[in-house]
């Protein structure tokens, strides 16, 4: 369904050019739940932005259902069936939660329908539907609303960039349930960038990206033990005796 062919991405800074992604190729089939993990600064978020169209690759090609979308805009890709949940949800002045959900779900959705999407992410719709999507909401609340907008779109592919970032433990537990449910339903494909073992655990496959390259790809049983070894110093984390 999604094919990334030899994707490279360079940025220019004062020290010259820097390669963020180096010739990355990745294929994701239909109805798959893929977790992308790896160290910070390794290129994960850039890859997500390249899939969605926020960044354009320096070279390489992106195919979606066989169609070349490399030069397509964010809007065109969104219309084709790609959704994206921001790592840092965007705040708006004067746009209400229900406005955003209605924009995501399309004209057909009614008030009750919009409320349902909020309930799915563990928010009591009555308390949130008429709130502004602004600084009056906490990080965890914004994050869940962000995820609700992606669920509301119900597209063939959804990309979540570190959904766990910046939220409290209670919200995180709720979040895990949301992703477990999405995985169980298996209607669409999901790419989720995460550092969280509990999220990696529910993925069909894990892709490890470090230093702009795909370091490993495989089932969680193959990848997770290797990853945990990499955590090094703390034996407790590896269930070994300290």
């Amino acid at each position: 369904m999604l094919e990334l062919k030899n994707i490279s991405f360079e940025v220019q800074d004062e020290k010259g050019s820097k390669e963020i992604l180096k010739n990355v190729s990745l294929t994701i089939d239909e109805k798959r739940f893929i977790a992308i993990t790896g160290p910070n600064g390794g290129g994960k978020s850039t890859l997500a932005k390249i899939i969605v169209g926020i960044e354009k690759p320096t070279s390489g090609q992106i195919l979606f259902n066989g169609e070349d979308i490399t030069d397509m805009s964010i809007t065109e890709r969104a219309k084709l069936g790609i959704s994206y949940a921001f790592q840092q949800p965007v705040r708006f002045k004067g746009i209400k939660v229900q406005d955003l959900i209605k924009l995501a779900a399309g004209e057909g959705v009614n008030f009750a329908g919009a409320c349902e999407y909020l309930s799915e992410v563990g928010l009591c719709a009555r308390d949130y539907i008429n709130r502004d999507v602004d600084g009056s909401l906490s990080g965890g609340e914004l994050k869940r609303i962000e995820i609700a907008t992606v669920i509301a779109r119900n597209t063939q592919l959804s990309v979540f960039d570190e959904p766990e970032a910046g939220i409290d433990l209670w919200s995180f537990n709720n979040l895990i349930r949301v992703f477990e449910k999405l995985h169980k339903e298996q209607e669409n494909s999901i790419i989720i960038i995460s550092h969280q073992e509990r999220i990696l655990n529910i993925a069909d496959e894990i892709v490890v990206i470090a230093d702009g390259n795909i370091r490993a790809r495989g089932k969680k049983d193959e990848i997770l033990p290797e990853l945990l070894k990499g955590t090094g110093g703390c034996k407790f984390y590896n269930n070994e005796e300290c």
Partner: protein
Amino acid sequence: MDEIQRTLLEQIADLHEVPTGAYNIRANGELAGRNTTANIDIITKEDEPGIDIYIKPGTKKESVHIPVLLSQTGHTELVYNDFHIGDDCDVTIVAGCGIHNGGDKLSKHDGIHTFYIGKNAKVRYVEKHYGQGEGTGERVMNPKTVVNIEENGYMEMETTQIKGIDSTKRVTEARLADGAKIVVKEKLMTHGNQYAETEFNVDLDGEGSSANVISRAVAKDNSRQLFLSKINGNNKCAGHTECDAIIMDNAKISAVPEITANHLEAELIHEAAIGKIAGEQLIKLMTLGLTEAEAEAQIINGFLK
């Protein structure tokens, strides 16, 4: 009333027909309709153009509409409207001016509205300005609002100018007695080569008085805006002024908040922010399938809502 005047009336007062309750419709300088009620009287001034509106003490849940319509190119006027609102009232006043200029001459409405709000009275004042017409003649409005609020009186003022006015200079002055409160919500959008200037001068004279002046503005194309907001804390009081503006294209916006404390117990805050639409806001809406132009419109509509 002709079709053009009907359109103007709909734009500035959301009215399709004559309103219920008290009203006074002024069209091209002439009286086009008036209704008074048992509690609300409207009297034409004799010494100068304009009207006096008298609202009896204790009047509740009543409204007064006083729209002004200009559809004749070259018509300019200066009108004085005074509102005498008795103690303990709870009323809504809907003013506003619509200009249709189909010709090449200047059309201008300058209105001076003076409010005398009695003790414990509550007033909601809504004012919309709108311009249209295919002519090259300028559409100009210069409203001045003077507000006097007695003890524990309250006024909420909503002013909106979204479309079609080439030049405007709005001045609002307010003097508040003990426990009185004023809330001003201004929405302004300019485009083309328009110029808009707003100036608020609030004197918090009474103990426990408060003011909250909130302006949301969008400037597009080559338009210019100047926002001046002065709050003087002359007693134990609370004042807050906020200007939040979106700048687009080649527009220019200045925001000049000024707060002066003349009393130890005066608590005054000013905030002003001007910036373009955040790129990430556009991107978020584009990931939902909106085009860049649709995303921009959605953001501005929300901002000015």
